[in-house]
């Protein structure tokens, strides 16, 4: 993702002088940013670890319910791990059924077995994961349509401005263009 963003910036940067410098800066800063990002994840794990230990029954149930997310994490090799986030977010939302079951039984180890036996809870967790996968697959088409519309509108605006310049200065205003 970061690579694609840099590429996009570089392409756009052809229009202005400042843009390539911006792109170059982005490339140079990639390594420290990755290190920072890794550090952040560790911090989150360290903060969540005591909570997980205190809520160990809930943690055990959620861990099992989040198996589709783990699969997504394994197949998601793209930088940014967007697929993992997409699937994981909705998988977690579906897993809340399990959480409700555990917490309703007093959040004890005894409540783990009954909760895991709740088919509706499994359905909710898996449906959440499925919804995440669906969004991940459908979104490129939607994004493509939105980008095409944006591109058309912006191009029309540029052509209109050019036409205004020709109307104001005559055909010779085009003479600054490089020969085809």
């Amino acid at each position, binding site marked *: *993702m970061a690579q*694609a*963003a840099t*590429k*996009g910036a570089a*392409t*756009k940067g*052809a*229009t202005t002088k400042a843009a390539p410098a911006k792109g170059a800066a982005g490339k140079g800063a990639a390594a420290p940013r990755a290190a920072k990002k890794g550090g952040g994840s560790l911090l989150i794990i360290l903060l969540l670890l005591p909570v997980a230990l205190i809520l160990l029954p809930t943690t055990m149930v959620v861990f099992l319910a989040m198996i589709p997310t783990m699969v997504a994490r394994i197949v998601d090799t*793209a930088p*940014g791990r*967007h*697929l993992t*986030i*997409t*699937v*994981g*977010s*909705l998988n*977690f*939302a579906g897993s*809340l059924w399990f*959480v*409700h079951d555990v*917490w309703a039984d007093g959040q004890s180890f005894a409540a783990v077995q009954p909760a895991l036996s709740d088919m509706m809870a499994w359905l909710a967790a898996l449906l*959440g994961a499925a*919804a*995440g996968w669906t*969004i*991940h697959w459908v*979104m*490129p*088409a*939607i*994004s*493509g349509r939105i*980008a*095409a519309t*944006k*591109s058309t509108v*912006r*191009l029309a605006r*540029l*052509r209109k*401005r*050019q036409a205004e*310049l*020709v*109307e*104001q*200065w*005559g055909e*010779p*205003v*085009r*003479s*600054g*263009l490089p020969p085809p």
Partner: protein
Amino acid sequence: MADSGDKVILQDRFEIKPSARLAAFDQGTAQAFAAEDLSHPGRKLFALIASGTLPCVGLHLPERRGQIPVLWPEAVGMVDWPVRVEGGAQVWGRRPAMVYLQPAGERMAKTEDDPLPRLNEQMLTRTILKPAVEMLREFTLFAVPHRAIRPTNIYYAAGSSGDIVFGPCFGPMPGADQPVVYETVENGLANRHGRSASLADDIYALGVLLLALYMGRRPLRGMSDEQVIAAKINLGSFSAMSQGEKFSPTMAELLRGLLSDKVAERWTVRNIDMWMLGQYFNPVLPTLPQRATRPIRFGGGEHLSKPAIALAMACHWDEAIDFVDSGQLEAWLQRGFNDEKAAEPLAQIRGLAFSYGPGGGVKHRTVSRMIEFMGSSLPICYKGIRVHINSLGTMLASVIDQGPLRSEFAELLRGRLAQGWLEQQPKMTPELTQVRRMLDALDPLIDRPGPGYSIERALYELEPLSPCRSDLIADYCVTHLRDLLPAIDAALPGVDAGTLPMDRHIAAFIAARIGRGVERELNALANMADQTAYRLGVLRLLAVVHGVHPNHDLPRLGETIAAMLMPVIDSFHRLKSRDELRAKVKQFAGKSQFQELADLLDEEGPTRQIDQRGFIEAQQHYVALEKEAQWLENGGLTHPELIKASSRMSAAVTSALMASAVLAGFAVMMVA
């Protein structure tokens, strides 16, 4: 000043009749016509209509102080005159006109061949010399010469004898109608329009007149012009023309003084006054040229002096080229004058002839410089041009429309032959120094080919009285800059559509008369390929004249200038500016505000600068827009990689938001 219908009226008083020619009173190029004094009918008048292309001294005469024995114009001015018929219609032009009272007596001699009266010393002094001195004294005060003192231009006050009046003199070019015998050596050899105009020349002509009337016959009659000049060179004017005639000592003293070939030794009006009062003067002895020990044959004759061979070379130009090439001249100068170093100045002359002027005319320039070297009293000679140093302007005015002679004159100037003549003079007078200064100033101008320079510029620099010879306004006889714009305005309706109010003559006339530098304007005129700059140059040059001589009643010129400037307006980039400029140009041109027009459209002016800067910015903006459009058209926003990346991000964000909403709902439920 103007005509009413077909009548030509001068100063609202004198009617000149174009249909009534009086050829007997013609003066060279000035033609005579009958005239009538409308306030005193019955007076017998005639009018001289001068050429509209040559300088006319008569237009600039001061007021006459009293009666002097010369036909003096009753009125002088410009008139509208029928100049020619084109396509059945009469074309009118402006011409200098001088109205004279017809002389009551007869002409002393109707033609050059008529017999002359023979007068004794007393009669000569009373009837000729006294009135002549009266006239020349007045002319000295006016600083104008008569230059037409000859029997055919002298009238008796009454009848056919007795007191005389001198005829008119302001119509033709000075000395142009004089027979060679009445001219000094230098003027006799010069072309008729290349003769000088000084009172010393009048004194000389008076001397010849007195001599002729004393002898009762024309001196040197039957001789060719070349022979007359040769005789004057070889023997001195007095000896040559007296031809053995016996004179009383006093008469000889007078004639020798008047006919001295050296201007510095020639008598003046004061000397004549004193002579008439009985004062004795040492006789002026002739200064004869050094004679060689052996003659040299050239041009069908034998010559013994340097001026004589110089004269012969001037009269036999083509032969002179081979003669100079052959080396005979060097040998003769060395042996005939026993001068071993004679070759040195000749080598120097060849070097100078090679150094200055176009490459093709080296031989001609060598001959010219040889003539100057050997005959310093002769005029400047170059091919068919023979001109006195003081009359370069009048000579050029007479040949400017004659292709070959015009080219010869231009070669003469480019070859610095006039400067060469000055360098050969034994003494530089203040007048010659002034001429030298003028020629040096002209030197850089003559070689530049653009409008406002070259031979046209030389004409107006050398001859301050020359009318502008532009084809556009030739019929209007414009001699002063203040008349230029009105003349162009009047001439424009008769010319083809699209004719610009400028040509080489107008540019040169302005440059010579304006009295300030107009380099920038002339440079713009030099490049006709750049029509915008050229037309702006025309406008600026006319605006300069308009600034010096403002005139806001020039509707046709304004209209022409407005039309001329349309391509200039079209050179502005901003289309809306063009419309605004068209309106402003029309407004300024309608009011003849040429300077405002020039400022408005000036290449360096704010309007142009703003337009130019705006256009460059617009071009750059257009290019930037085009690049952005190209980027978009090439998938700048819709590239699959870009879409893929953005869609992954969008999916993650969407999922996260949805999950957040569910989590929030769960939290609410749990709290409840």
